């Protein structure tokens, strides 16, 4: 999957999880940029992203992701 497609699919997951169709993701997006992305939502979000892409993040990855770009990279690495 190309990065742009991964990003698109990820954006769909985000919109679904946050129930907000105005969310736009770029590789630079961080938790600060999305309304309601707190530690609680992070758990829900990770579970949904894992489901949607059929991947599993490690504990270190879940706590260490800095922005959407890193999430996309991890997904692409794991989905291979």
């Amino acid at each position: 999957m190309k990065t742009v497609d991964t990003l698109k699919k990820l954006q769909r997951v985000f919109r679904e999880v946050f129930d907000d169709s105005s969310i736009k993701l770029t590789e630079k997006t961080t938790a600060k940029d999305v309304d309601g992305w707190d530690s609680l939502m992070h758990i829900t979000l990770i579970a949904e992203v894992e489901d949607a892409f059929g991947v599993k993040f490690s504990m270190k990855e879940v706590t260490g992701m800095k922005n959407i770009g890193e999430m996309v990279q991890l997904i692409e690495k794991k989905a291979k």
Partner: protein
Amino acid sequence: MRETTYLQLKKNLKKDASGFPITRFALLGDCATQHLACAIRGYAYELGENFEMFEADYDQIDAQLMDSESEFFGFRPDTVLIQMCTEKLYERFVRTQLSDRSTFAEREILAIRNCFERVNAGIKCDILFFLFLPLDDGVFGAYTYREKSSFAYQLMKLNMLLADASGEYGNVRLIDLEPIRAKLGADQFKDAKMYAIAKMPMSTSALVWAASRVVDAVRARKGRFHKCAVVDLDNTLWGGVIGDDGLEGIEIGELGQGHAFTDFQIWLKELKNRGIMLAVCSKNNEATAREPFEKHPEMVLRLDDFSAFAANWEDKASNILKIRDELNIGLDSIVFFDDNPFERNLVKTMLPEVEVVSLPEDPANYVDYVRMLNLFDTASYSEEDQVRTERYLAEKNRSRLNESIDNYDDYLKALEMKAVCAPFDAFHTPRIAQLTQRSNQFNVRTVRYTDAEIAEISQSDKYITRYFTLKDKFGDHGLIAVVILERRGEELFVAEWLMSCRVLKRGMEQFISDAIMKIARQEGFLRVIGEYIETPKNAMVKNLYTDMGFESIGDNRFLAVCETYKLHNTYIREESI
């Protein structure tokens, strides 16, 4: 269990549940409970329930329960779920000195019982508690269960002690999540990293299942549960088509796929023994449909296991309506089992209140599938349940007598009815509590009581209690009505009056009304006040009090004066116990 997702449940929180019946629900846990709270509220919405939720902060069980002024007690919940997770239990275990480990479960159960008692000392509230999920730490191998100081041994023991405790406290029920974990697989049930990071003992997909069990338990206690299983015949109760394959050709028992159908029938029979009514709904000639029940030696179910039998060529929705009328139950208390997706869809569309089970394609999977659905949760069980079907069948014989006699009074006389009217006692307590939970139609105030509450009321000087039994020449109806009277100075207030619908129009209403008035006179009261609280299901008793000779005094309240009340004529003879 409805098919849904955690996200769907989360979205439900934004929807308007204000028209739904309210449950004040409190959640206390020694782990992270926010996601569970969300799933429970969202699942409640799916089933048309409005859960107002109090969620304590992380690991605040003791803090909330030890302080009688806490937010928990201030919230006045009607149900509390206490979630203690095995992970935390294990932490306490490993901190226990080796010499004390073989008595670990006894100390833990004391602490848990203490929690229950704190709740009960403060408020009237149902308590739900998750059984501890099994955990073998792999330290002892096959030696584990002969070593009392092993964790797995202590955990198994603790769960047994919990089961015993729940039997002792009338208001505690245990929810076992292990079947859900077995179904999803341990890795799907718990995401280890989420426990490590966020102390979440269940994954979001497991939470949906856990929430469904919790909401089922709450609904059962509020009288919203299933009472009847309506089953198709061909390819549901046996393999093949009786009309085509004949008695020798259908698969049941040793023939073909027969064992799978035998197992399904055994499950239904167990339901029947537990008090669920069974009914047949099949497209068949009636005589053909009856034949296997009468003649096939390997059938588990027989005709007298069924309370209703609808085999004809009409559509199934119409037949289910007939079954409903015959058994006098609500559509929402019916579960429908059919292998045919067309029939399922028809019933789903025409009768959306009926719970329609999508049986798996392979009959081999029927029984495992239906066992997982938790379709028949209950908050009570009594000897009455074991004979429910027999009572219904006796009732059918009565209606036949009714048809053969023109004059209704003659019919009532011919029934030779005898009733007992007596104060609540320990023996009848479970049955009385159950009747308060089951009765929806003939129920003037629809207050639900637990065993413990009934026991308390029967001890209290504030109340006068009576239960009523009725029998006639066709059989014993058992305990069919409950009255709770509250002393209010010169007035006697009818705090509860409910009756089983199957004894309607026998003069039992008049008999009970007279009994209330006789009590009031004996005890020196001047007046009796009754009240009707309307629900979607109890229109039947809207005019009960005026029909009995009470006078309406507004606000759905009714008055009878002891001196002027006129006793009725009935054909019921009072018996002493």
